[in-house]
């Protein structure tokens, strides 16, 4: 629409706006899953454009595992206040009582209970029938075949054998009571598209994406930032200050930093041209085994 972005990004923007409007028109209770990351930021920006000059006709939901970076939470609350958003924050209280944490329980169980199960609980509690996610097809192999409108059973399960064909832009939004739809307006975007669009549209992002000296420790070859006192240190271990940034954000003990000098959006874009690792490399959950993302999706992980 505007001249600052390339024709390629304009097409992606128009497509995403179409998808977002389609959901608002065809579902009773949609919600935008807001993870605070750069993809969520772009998605939120597009949603606001879709309904301009009106307000967002649906709330945002953040599933808070209580292990997010402090800067993420501050950014989330500032964004909600600045834009006047209807933001729901949900935490799996039962998981908290059970003492589930990425440290004590390991990444797999923590993700299962505090993200996957928490999301299901929240969707059930508020009876949301459609949830926007910021996932992109370029992130992981199994996502290349994900639909833009992805049907979930009443148990929130994803059945790769029983997905609806998606022709043209005629999205089949029909669901039975209790069932829901996950909708991915950024399906056709790449990581580079997201950053270029963020830069062109001046969308604010969490400062953790930019390089800065931060206290880190080495965990199995990954640089983990010591964001608070909950991260156990080995005897005699001292966090060291390194100039790092994050390509993806999640629970801080599960998010690996990269050494970088990229302090601006332009730096990040320049760095990406030379990058030789994929962005999900910094995520512990994908490393368990090949096909692990697909398994998590069947169970209801985003």
């Amino acid at each position, binding site marked *: *629409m*505007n001249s600052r*972005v*390339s*024709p*390629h990004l*304009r*097409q992606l*923007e*128009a497509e995403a*706006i*179409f998808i977002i*409007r*389609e959901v608002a*028109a065809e579902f009773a209770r949609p919600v935008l899953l807001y993870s605070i990351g750069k993809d969520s930021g772009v998605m939120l920006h597009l949603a606001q*454009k*879709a*309904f*301009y*000059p*009106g*307000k967002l006709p649906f709330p945002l939901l953040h599933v808070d595992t209580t292990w997010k970076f402090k800067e993420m939470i501050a950014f989330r609350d500032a964004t909600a206040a600045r834009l006047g958003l209807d933001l729901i924050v949900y935490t799996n209280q039962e998981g908290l009582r059970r003492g589930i944490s990425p440290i004590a329980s390991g990444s797999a169980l923590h993700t299962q209970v505090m993200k996957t199960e928490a999301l299901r609980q929240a969707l059930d509690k508020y009876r949301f029938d459609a949830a926007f996610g910021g996932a992109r*097809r*370029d992130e992981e*192999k*199994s*996502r*290349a*075949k994900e639909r833009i409108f992805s049907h979930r059973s009443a148990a929130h399960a994803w059945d*790769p*054998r029983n*997905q*609806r*064909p*998606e*022709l*043209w*832009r*005629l999205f*089949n939004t*029909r*669901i039975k009571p209790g069932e829901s739809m996950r909708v991915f307006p950024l*399906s*056709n*975007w*790449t990581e*580079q*598209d997201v950053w*270029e669009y963020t830069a062109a549209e001046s969308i604010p992002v969490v400062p953790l994406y930019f390089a800065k000296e931060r206290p880190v420790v080495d965990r199995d070859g990954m640089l983990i930032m010591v964001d608070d006192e909950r991260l156990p240190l080995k005897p005699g271990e001292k966090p060291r200050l390194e100039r790092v940034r994050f390509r993806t954000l999640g629970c801080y003990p599960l998010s690996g930093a990269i050494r970088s000098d990229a302090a601006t959006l*332009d730096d990040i*874009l*320049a760095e990406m*041209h030379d*990058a*030789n690792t*994929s962005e999900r*490399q910094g995520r512990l959950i994908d490393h368990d085994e*090949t*096909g692990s993302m*697909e398994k998590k999706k069947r169970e209801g992980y985003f």
Partner: protein
Amino acid sequence: MNDAVEIEILEKRAAPGGKALPTLRFLTCGSVDDGKSTLIGRLLYEQQLIHEDQLAALERDSKKHGTVGPNIDFALLVDGLEAEREQGITIDVAYRAFSTANRAFIVADTPGHEQYTRNMATGASNSDLAVLLIDSRKGLLSQTHRHATIVSLLGIRHVVLAVNKIDLVGYDQAVFEKIAADFAAFAAPLEFATCVAIPISARFGDNISQSSQLTPWYRGPSLVAYLETISVEEDRSSLPFRMPVQWVNRPHLDFRGFCGTIASGEIRPGDEIVVALSGKLTRVERILTADGDLDVARTGDSVTLTLADAVDIGRGSVLAAPQARPDVADQLAANLIWMSDEKLAPGRSYLMKIGTRTIPVSVTKVNYRLDVTTLAQHPAKTLGLNEVGFCNLAATAPIAFDPYAENRVTGAFILIDRFSNATAGAGLIAFGLRRATNIHPQDLTIVKEARARIKHQRPAVLWFTGLPGAGKSTVANLAEQQLHARGVHTILLDGDNIRHGLNKDLGFSAADRLENIRRVGEVAKLMTDAGLIVLCAFISPFAAERQMVRDILAPGEFIEIFVDTPIEQCMARDPKGLYKKALAGEIKDFTGVDQVYEAPKTPELVLGQGDATPQQSSARVIAYLVERSYVERFDDSGDWSI
């Protein structure tokens, strides 16, 4: 900083915004093991979109599942689902985005296995170009034919024939040229706007990004070079304006905006628009976006319009250019691709989603099933999974649409099963069967009954069908002479004459034969609107196409006259010497020889049996018209008595 380095980085950074051509969406299709996934893996690898960690996983996987020995199996990179990997078959459409310095691409990798035709149609529906893969060792397979047909059916106008595994035939020019020629012959009736063949090896990278040293006889561009430069703009911007309304934006009482994505054409503030179904006219006041008002919005833009008048518009309304409005009908004919395990149930209510509108419809008739390998039409009562058929549909209310061939957005629909909610079928509209509403009331001041009344006759179409040489034209000619002499206003449409004029662009493929009859039917309908008695003499071998003409006419207007001359007699007569040529194999698809003739089951009139002369046959036609009051009875018409 070194200047040269600075410039290089700037060029790299400038590239994404400066790409000259818009994003190319294409699909790859081919048979099992033709190497589609390998090709896409290779494309990603050569654009350096495979990162070190992914490459490490790939090397690990190649040892476990790979089928290419010690080399990296690129297919494993794109075959996403575990189950597929174990079976070694791609079972679903995978979408990948990548870009070169010159262009951004989104590729749909679609499965080639026979039972997954629906996935190919899915990938094709959002693509502007198709890369058809062929294994050099195998040449054209029936699946290649099927894929080309589906691609053509879905409106893709540009095809690249990637003749893969050229390494395995020793980079042999003759093999490549034979495949290219075979395909060109098959694809001719599909009328692709561009169709090129490129010899490649996805496994070794020949002619993928770089021209290969091993195919010196090939002078054309590499696959990537070709894709970077081809212009596929069907130029929907030059089509009439269409915008299905998605959402009505009412933040407060003083603002009412109509949101949608422009399906075709362009729009400016001040332009007059019409609401397709109601025929209400108004003007565009503003074109809003979050980035400010626009002076012009074009195809593909997602915008919000405010209008000069308070017109009744909601989700599902189609806003259109008043001087070129979409068709409006509640009955239409469409090609259906069936996508459900449960067969199509004619008469059952399905939900049609067309544009932003969802409306109950039923399939009233399957005219025929299309064999997408041979293009033959087969009689059918239903359609099963992955079958394609030409069907009539009836909606519970009028629908605004364009033929799919003219507009891929406003001419497409899906059918949803109302019980399972599955997407059961995909439809491509051919034409409306009957005008449902009178959106141009001024057109109807003089109706056809009025035109016919001053001629003292009732309009009708006399449809003479029968084998070549049966005597259709002879009888029709005589009948017209007799009617003319009685003062009846007539016109004769003859197969050969029509093919020299109106239909000179059509051949004799099944699709062209259908189009031939469709046009004749529409012309005949216009003539009946003028109040005429229309005599049509056409072989029209298929029951479905004759039914199609019957369906577009008002009840009682279509009089099917079967000129049932025995084939031996037709051959003996052979007035144009055509049977002789057909029997000698010089003419293909000749009705009665190598093309079936489906005799009418319940024609209004049967002629030509026994030893009837043309005069006797013609007299029976006149008698039929008189008895049923199409023409008036004359007492002084003794000359024409039998």
